[in-house]
């Protein structure tokens, strides 16, 4: 541990080997930091959680990087190699697998689950209670809502299954379910259930195609994204990525038969 002058670090916090903590941080007592973590300046780690998660620790896996001005509450658990941008807020009860990446200014409202290798870009907002699978992409300004009758104490959280891509500026209305491998086009507003592998677009979004037909016209790259972007993940993730790709493509013909009526 080094460079912790001017930071407040509880002596009860469990700090792993070779952890670097920047200036002006506060590390609460209920925190467990794995080895080789880096905590950026002015971050607050392990803020006391609400009643439901009171007394539960905050566990952050080895090799994680928390950039400056993050606020992460107790009662959450992150696998290895969590990476956050600056000014990230993560509330209590967030459970995430390996290598969750959270862009600057993103906001995770707690009681959420994330699988492995999820990517949230800047300003994503994940409403309380959301469930996000493995290998999911939530691009900038994506909003996962949860209140079907605002303001209320009702909760209808969003579910996002494995391999889904949600493009920039999308709103997912309360209770939305995005099935495996679907892609939501930019600026769409989605409610209900989007079938596996579908491409949905518009406000309100409608299903227009299947990702197997989606192609970048300028470069010739072909969806699903596992075709051309698997190399962005570590070797031990490759088999899972290819299995996910196959599962999406296997569903293609059934999708065409059952979910689409050609527009006249």
């Amino acid at each position, binding site marked *: 541990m080094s460079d912790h002058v001017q930071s407040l670090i509880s002596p009860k916090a469990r700090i792993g080997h070779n952890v670097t903590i920047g200036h002006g941080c506060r590390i609460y007592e209920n925190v467990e930091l794995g080895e080789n973590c880096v905590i950026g300046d002015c971050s607050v780690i392990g803020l006391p959680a609400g009643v439901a998660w009171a007394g539960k620790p905050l566990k952050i896996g080895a090799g994680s990087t928390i950039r400056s001005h993050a606020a992460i509450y107790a009662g959450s658990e992150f696998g290895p190699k969590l990476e956050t941008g600056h000014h990230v807020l993560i509330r209590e009860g967030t459970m995430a697998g390996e290598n969750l990446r959270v862009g600057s200014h993103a906001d995770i409202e707690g009681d959420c689950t994330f699988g492995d290798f999820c990517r949230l870009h800047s300003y994503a907002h994940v409403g309380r209670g959301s469930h996000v699978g493995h290998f999911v992409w939530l691009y900038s300004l994506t909003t996962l809502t949860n209140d079907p009758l605002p303001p209320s104490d009702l909760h209808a959280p969003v579910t996002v299954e494995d391999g889904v891509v949600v493009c920039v500026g999308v709103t997912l209305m309360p209770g939305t379910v995005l099935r495996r491998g679907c892609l939501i086009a930019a600026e769409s507003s989605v409610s209900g259930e989007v079938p596996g592998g579908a491409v949905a677009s518009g406000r309100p979004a409608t299903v227009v*195609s*299947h990702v197997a*037909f989606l*192609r970048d016209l*300028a470069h010739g790259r072909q*969806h699903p994204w596992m075709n051309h972007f698997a190399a962005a993940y570590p070797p031990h993730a490759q088999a899972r990525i290819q299995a996910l790709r196959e599962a999406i493509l296997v569903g293609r013909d059934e999708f*065409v038969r059952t979910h689409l009526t050609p527009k006249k």
Partner: protein
Amino acid sequence: MKRSDILQLLQEILKRQGKPSDVAETAELSAIGFRSLDFSELALRVETASGRPLTFDAAPLRAIRTVADVLDFLQTASGQP
């Protein structure tokens, strides 16, 4: 599927979006507002209309810039050059 039938489907997609649909084969896709998303819809509709699965592996991996490129690509992918 005939080239003219694919062109008609493409025009229908443009028309539904309120874009000019009377396009020449030489027209640049960027100029007529035809996007990747529209391509995916067109490909699906070609497959549905032809009743035969498209095989993108058979089509060349290259840039698609014009309406003619789209028609060439989808004719190849549908196995009917």
